[in-house]
């Protein structure tokens, strides 16, 4: 088990700051997810930890050792690439034991460890195949196998599931999480998919334009988003951010917390999208659009009048100028309170 510490690390290419003064720590044996939209610097951060890129400034420590200036092979890490990076001319078995061969592990031990990993990942019958003869999910397993056979304390994952279909992704998510917990690996996992982050992580680092937007457990990220960006990145559909005519504050309310009925703010239904378990209703409130997640099937004609209300503790306040969360706003405007408290 090894703790990973990233200490004010930056990566600069010319004028672009791909990673800008990022600091965080992943506890030993935990799964940390680096989450964010394309180009936010999450993959670069991972490659900096791996040593595939060199830092412009800052330090990286793995298991207490400063690895900032060490080559990738000396950092006690394994990595799974988005493209899997399997060697196309080698069999599954040769791909998995590649690293053991490099390090001249004995043939007997190599066979024994290969058998163990193959059984763990259900690859027993595929060992003689070439990667091109495997499905996407099987290739993913081979890449995983190559990472865990090394028995390194840290495993880095660069969007490992983005090439799989939705069904398989769901399965692999659970499998990777179970494997990580069983083997006690410290895992850093890069993804742009908030579902992966929410369902797998012990800790989520949400990144934006090279900086950390929020570093928190998944439940906290959902319940107490630190910024408007975090609020809108987590949750489907995203949180409603309404100004309701105020200049200094923004009101955030999740679609699942809005109640449709005969109390609260006046609104007009624009459209209703039935999804099975619930219906997403788009309502116009003044000049703004608010989404409501109503349970079951709700039929509305376009343009029908309705009223929106919500519980006081479901409200998130954000500073309109900085976009940061404000927990100090206790006295919500009188008119709003009167109209909205159910």
């Amino acid at each position, binding site marked *: 088990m090894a703790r990973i510490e990233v200490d004010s690390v930056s990566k600069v290419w010319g004028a672009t700051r791909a990673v800008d003064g990022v600091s965080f720590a992943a506890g030993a044996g935990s799964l940390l997810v680096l989450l964010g939209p394309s180009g936010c610097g999450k993959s670069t951060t991972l490659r900096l930890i*791996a040593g*595939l890129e060199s830092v412009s400034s800052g330090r990286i420590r793995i298991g207490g050792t400063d690895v900032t200036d060490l*080559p*990738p*092979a*000396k950092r006690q*890490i*394994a*990595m799974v*690439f988005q*493209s899997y*990076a399997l*060697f*196309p*001319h080698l069999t599954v078995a040769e791909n998995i034991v*590649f*690293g053991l061969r*490099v*390090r001249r592990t004995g043939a007997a031990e190599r066979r024994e460890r290969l058998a163990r990993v193959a059984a763990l990942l259900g690859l027993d019958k595929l060992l003689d195949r*070439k990667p*091109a003869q495997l499905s996407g999910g099987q290739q993913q397993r081979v890449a995983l196998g*190559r990472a865990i056979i*090394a028995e390194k304390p840290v495993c880095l994952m660069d969007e490992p599931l983005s090439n799989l279909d939705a069904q398989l992704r769901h399965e692999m998510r659970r499998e990777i999480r179970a494997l990580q917990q069983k083997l006690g690996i410290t895992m850093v996992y890069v993804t742009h998919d908030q579902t992966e982050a929410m369902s797998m992580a012990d800790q989520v680092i949400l990144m934006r334009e090279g900086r950390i937007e929020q570093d928190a457990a998944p439940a906290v990220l959902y319940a107490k988003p630190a910024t408007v960006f975090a609020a809108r990145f987590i949750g489907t559909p995203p949180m409603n951010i309404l100004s309701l005519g105020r200049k200094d504050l923004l009101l955030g309310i999740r679609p699942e917390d809005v109640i449709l009925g005969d109390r609260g703010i006046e609104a007009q239904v624009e459209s209703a999208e039935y999804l099975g378990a619930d219906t997403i209703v788009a309502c116009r409130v003044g000049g703004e659009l608010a989404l409501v997640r109503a349970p079951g099937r709700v039929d509305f004609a376009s343009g029908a009048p309705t009223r929106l209300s919500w519980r006081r503790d479901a409200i998130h306040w954000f500073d309109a100028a900085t976009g940061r969360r404000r927990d100090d706003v206790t006295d919500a405007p009188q008119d709003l309170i009167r109209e909205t408290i159910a």
Partner: protein
Amino acid sequence: MTELAAGTIARRRTGRGFIPSIHGWLLLLPAAVLLVSFTHWPTAATIIDSFFSTPKGARPAVFVGVENYEAMLDDPIFWRALWNNVVYCIGTIPASIALALLMAVFVNGRLAGRGFLRLAYFTPTVLPMIAVANIWLFFFSPSYGLVDQVTALFGAPARNWLGDPSTALWCIVVVTIWKEAGFFMIFYLAALQQISPRLAEAAALEGASRWYFFRRITFPLLMPTTLFVLVNAVINAFRLVDHIVVMTRGGPDNATALLLFYIYEIGFKFWDTSYAATLTVVLLAILAAVAIGQFLFLDRRVHYQ
């Protein structure tokens, strides 16, 4: 709109039985005429001519059976040219392929001015062989040539590199390697750029050295290219004689006579067309055998993506 119209016409034609096959043959005809008249017919004619005597003045060609082939087996210059060609192949092919691979790996890496280097390596390929031969003719000239000027710095005596039967063929070998390596490099470079940089990173994470990665990953993945380059190199070794015409004309004492150059001399200097045809048949047979052998034996060991 035009596609739609063409489709309708095609449907109407297929309805009429024999016409569609004529339509197809007509489409094939231009290419077929060119191929037959410039490739297949000359090949067949050459094989036929090799069994006849050379027509001279009032004497037309007569069928002589394998007499031409018997004469060839007794011809010491033929054996000399064949042996020269074997030496030339062994001297040029492995060296130019190895050099091409080395240069390609070098200019594929991250280094300043690699665009310029790539261009520099490729320049010999762009130059016409006649020009190349003239440049090298100067390099090899006794006393004031570049090679002699450099060796003179170390106190070596002046040598007539191209005039000496023991060095002439090796001079030709050097020119060929210089000319061919840059050409083959382009193929290797293209193949190298098809290999994902992620593979090198995955190997680096496992602690593989650059040489280990090259030996276990890069080189096996380049095998299809190597096979292609090898076939081309062999064909070129029997096909390229421009520089011989300029630099040595097969001399001294047939030391640089390659098979094709000898055929050219027999056919167009001595006008013994039947014997030239006989030699050509032998050349074709050698090339065919080598190409088939390469594909049969090496193909099994090659991984295609």
